């Protein structure tokens, strides 16, 4: 008999309602292989800090394993993992004496951006540095991860009805920033 079964509900605090037993080692290895890189990319591009992305990715997986994950399959598990990572990112920003993600000044992320340097050759880095962190989150989840509005709402904790408008505004701003770069690239 495993100790986890002897002490039920020990770690149920953060778990979603429809949850199943924690993954075994092999199942986790496969899930990790498929999910770690996209999660790291999300954290690195939204935070603009590669070291922070490393730390938060590991912490996200550890918390994911400690909680009972959703039983709706790997897609739901991955969404839950992104939700944990998003909350960790938000907590990290809050620790820096800010009250919400909306109030984090963009300059803070733009100056600390190691990720921007590697992306600058691909034009998105400088654009991301000029966007608000929440806009980066929304755009990344929608266009890099391909999440629907409902899924983005689930991951970010925002109202589902407001995602369309927020995404529209973020997209418009990103497109405005991207076009001059694209034109320069096209002129070469």
């Amino acid at each position: 008999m495993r100790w986890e079964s002897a002490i039920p509900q020990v770690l149920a605090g953060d778990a979603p309602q429809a949850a199943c037993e924690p993954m075994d080692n092999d199942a986790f290895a496969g899930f990790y292989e498929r999910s770690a890189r996209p999660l790291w990319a999300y954290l690195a591009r939204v935070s603009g800090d590669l070291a922070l992305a490393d730390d938060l990715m590991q912490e996200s997986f550890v918390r994911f394993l400690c909680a009972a994950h959703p039983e709706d399959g790997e897609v739901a598990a991955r969404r839950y993992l992104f939700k944990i990572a998003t909350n960790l990112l938000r907590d990290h920003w809050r620790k820096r004496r800010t009250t919400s993600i909306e109030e984090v000044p963009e300059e803070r992320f733009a100056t600390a951006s190691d990720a921007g340097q590697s992306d600058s050759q691909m034009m998105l880095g400088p654009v991301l540095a000029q966007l608000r962190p929440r806009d980066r989150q929304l755009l990344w989840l929608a266009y890099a991860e391909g999440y629907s509005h409902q899924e983005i709402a689930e991951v970010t904790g925002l109202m589902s009805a407001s995602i369309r408008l927020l995404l529209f505004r973020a997209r418009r701003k990103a497109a405005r920033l991207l076009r001059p770069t694209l034109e320069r690239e096209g002129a070469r």
Partner: protein
Amino acid sequence: MTKFACAREKEVEELVGCGQWPLAAAAELRAHVEGCRACSDLAVVAQAFQAAHSSATAEPTLPSAGALWWRAQLRRRNAAIERIGRPLLGAQIFALATVLLMAVGGLAWQVRRGFGLLAWIEALPRALHFDALWPTSLGGFEGNFWYVVPVLATLALVGGVVVYFASEKH
């Protein structure tokens, strides 16, 4: 087309998603995108983010899954131990509070009875025959109350230190 979206965004998004924009797009759709701000923004942004996604996922050096697995196991075990220990700590606090209450109650009771406790403590050395433990060279020990107090205080102090170290070790 609504204020925030175009009905053809889905088509554009699908083509960008499978990497076929604009080559596999119909001429009519390309013409639409050129004239539609929402679709044009979508094509530009989605292409850029997908390119960034492809390059970013190749970047990291990941720790092994096993290391994270064991970290999680350790954390689960610690959480379980902490959860089990919580009622024990509660019982200890309750016991201490009960003893303290009883001591305070007893003291108050003695105060109301005119400090008979002091007389009892004074008589204690004689009752326990402490004089038998005392070296004979220390003549004149008559079981005086003021000799007993330091002994009891020392015992209490040593007892406290022993309990402290025992709990620390535990």
